[in-house]
């Protein structure tokens, strides 16, 4: 018997291996709704393993999806940053246009107020700046080709900027009203006090002094100083500055007061060069109606003589 078994061992193993599953299959296939001992044992073995594997895979999957989310978020943040940079650039550009528009409106308003003046609008294309970040000289994009000559007044709505100091074909250099070489005949508006405004501006200040002959009464801090027009260089009535302090000092024959300029020289971008004054009010009125130009490279004469 044992010999028979040894001889047919392989066949018996194969038979048993094929028959056992078939038997189990027969039993479980016949009554599938009833849980057998084998099934219960299998569940007891496999369920905890599958549950643990499920938890591990979920954690890894969660970590991975979190990582992917972080990468996505980073990409989105970079895209937003780029977009934000572009928008910030556009906003800055828009703000620049707004400011330019405002300045040009101011110039236009000045032109309408002063129709008696024949002007050329100009861009400031260069500024000499001192070591204290003070503008000591400016350069314009208009020159002798546009009819400019030395000594012509340079103004803006806030007041007097200075006068043309040097002029060439397409460029002009302006001496500021606060320059130590500058001298302008002025008066205190509404007070009848006349005198001379001399620049005292050094590299670190924008100041001037008002010199007058007779000791003045009734002056106050903030009183407006305007051009008198007596020097035949600057048209009358252009604001030059304001009284800064009432500490009157005597200097030889003259009395002296500190004046702050009306113009902020650090922020000048566009100016008007006064190239002439109209004497006929009718012409002035007509010209003023058409005077809506804005400064541009090379300048443009506003109105006829």
């Amino acid at each position, binding site marked *: 018997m044992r010999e028979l078994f040894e001889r047919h061992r392989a066949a018996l193993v194969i038979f048993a291996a094929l028959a056992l599953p078939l038997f189990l299959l027969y039993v479980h296939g016949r009554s599938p709704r009833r849980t057998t001992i084998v099934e219960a044992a299998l569940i007891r073995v496999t369920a905890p393993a599958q549950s643990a594997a499920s938890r591990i895979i979920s954690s*890894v999957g969660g970590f991975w999806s979190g990582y992917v989310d972080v990468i996505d978020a980073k990409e989105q943040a970079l895209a937003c940053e780029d977009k934000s940079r572009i928008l910030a650039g556009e906003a800055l550009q828009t703000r620049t246009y707004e400011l330019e528009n405002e300045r040009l409106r101011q110039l236009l308003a000045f032109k309408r107020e002063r129709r008696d003046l024949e002007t050329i609008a100009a861009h400031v294309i260069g500024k000499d700046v001192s070591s204290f970040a003070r503008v000591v000289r400016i350069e314009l994009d208009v020159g002798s080709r546009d009819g400019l000559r030395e000594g012509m007044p340079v103004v803006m709505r806030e007041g007097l900027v200075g006068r043309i100091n040097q002029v060439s074909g397409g460029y002009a250099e302006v001496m500021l009203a606060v320059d130590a070489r500058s001298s302008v005949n002025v008066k205190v508006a509404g007070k009848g006090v006349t005198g001379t405004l001399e620049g005292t501006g050094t590299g670190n200040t924008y100041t001037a002094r008002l010199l007058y002959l007779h000791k003045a009464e009734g002056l106050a801090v903030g009183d407006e100083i305007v051009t008198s027009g007596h020097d035949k260089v600057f048209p009358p009535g252009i604001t030059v500055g304001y009284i800064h302090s009432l500490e009157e000092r005597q200097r030889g024959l003259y009395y002296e007061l500190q004046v702050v300029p009306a113009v902020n020289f650090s922020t000048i971008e566009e100016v008007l060069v006064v190239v002439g004054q109209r004497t006929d009010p009718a012409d002035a009125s007509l010209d003023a109606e058409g005077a809506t130009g804005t400064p541009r490279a090379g300048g443009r004469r506003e109105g006829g003589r």
Partner: protein
Amino acid sequence: MRSIGILLLGFLLLAFESPFLHEASVSHYAPDLALCVVLYVGLTTGLASGMGVALLLGLLKDGFALSSPVGLHMEIAAVAFLVSFRLSRRLALRGPGPLMLIAMFFSMGASLLELLLSLVFDRTFGHGAGGPTVILVSMIPQALATAPFAPLVFWLLDKLDALTTRKGGDSVYLG
């Protein structure tokens, strides 16, 4: 020791297979990793011990796949083991390509056997979501899904063999 290692690895593969595929959203065409293990066992192990491992792997698979009656995958594993055991003496497999091809054929054969056994033994077969059509439709996709995993499973088992039998880790089948 080697058989226990193979069983343990097969158990882990079966435990992780289902949740992994579910997480990867490809659970419809799951690779038959247990079949790959049985194929390896058939090609590398003796008849009695190999058959024992194959039967236990089939039983474990029955445990993990509770929708089918117990014994179904045992029978499939036993047949697969016998075929691969016979092939091991006549076939010289070299490289992952032929291995994938063999795994694909075994997977299709296993699907046909599953269909046949279910028709004969499973009284509820075709009543629920599963049925002959489902097995036939998924037969080729499942074979295609199983094939690429065969070299991976063989590589793992080779490493396990190297650990348990202290032989070199070079695979006879992966070249």
